[in-house]
């Protein structure tokens, strides 16, 4: 895939970091404002997709093939799985919000709601990696590439 014109490149260079930051913000504040792990994760993936669409995939092809998005996905999901399993280890129910029982935190503040922000973070990583891998699989890879 070829890159686009200079104007597009400049604009997306400016836009991509802010979209990325917005994604991180949406992930971290999922329990207080609209949004959450999914919305934020898709935003983060979107910032990468924007850069690749603007600059073309030819330059980054080799890095994309080495950089393993699926591994990130596994890790993110495994963290989420572990947060769910934590309750069972602690002797309560599966998926128990074990942190609120000990330290409820102040409502309406960032550090509240126990494992919810942590889950959001894990989901954010997983969704970003998953969507990015779908994008590179369907849009960039050629016959015979391995991921």
């Amino acid at each position, binding site marked *: 895939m070829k890159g686009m014109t200079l104007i597009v490149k400049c604009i997306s260079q400016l836009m991509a970091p802010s979209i990325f930051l917005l994604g991180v913000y949406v992930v971290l504040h999922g329990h*207080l*404002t*609209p949004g959450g792990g*999914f919305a934020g994760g898709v935003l983060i993936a979107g910032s990468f997709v924007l850069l690749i669409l603007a600059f073309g995939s030819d330059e980054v092809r080799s890095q994309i093939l080495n950089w393993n998005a699926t591994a990130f996905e596994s890790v993110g999901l495994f963290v989420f799985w572990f947060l769910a399993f934590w309750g069972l280890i602690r002797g309560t129910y599966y998926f128990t919000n074990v942190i609120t029982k000990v330290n409820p935190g102040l409502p*309406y503040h960032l550090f509240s709601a126990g494992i919810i922000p942590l889950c959001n973070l894990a989901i954010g990583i997983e*969704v970003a990696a998953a*969507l990015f891998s*779908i994008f590179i*699989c*369907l849009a960039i890879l050629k*016959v015979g590439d391995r991921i």
Partner: protein
Amino acid sequence: MIVFVMAIVLFLIGLYGVLVKRNVFKILIALSIIEYSVNLLFALIGYRRGGTVPILTEGTKAGTFFVDPIPQALVLTAIVIGLGTTALLAAVAVRLYEKYDTYDVRKIRKLRG
């Protein structure tokens, strides 16, 4: 009630597409339309006249009432599931094109009836 019926109309348009269209990508589009219609219907079901967004803030007054939050949570799940099915279907469609060199379902027919 008219909005519910319009969501069903959208569902039926998608159903028509799946049953009648003979192009792999058109069928994919039709399945997406069905998915939108079900999400739409679900979101409409949760709406409450005069209700507000179910997010509390420190200044929330006692009298305010909210829309139903459960359908929103379910539709969120349904949207992501829809994305997953669409992605897999698109991957299979691309591979089918590679093998058969066409999107025409009538020509993609190596298996017997």
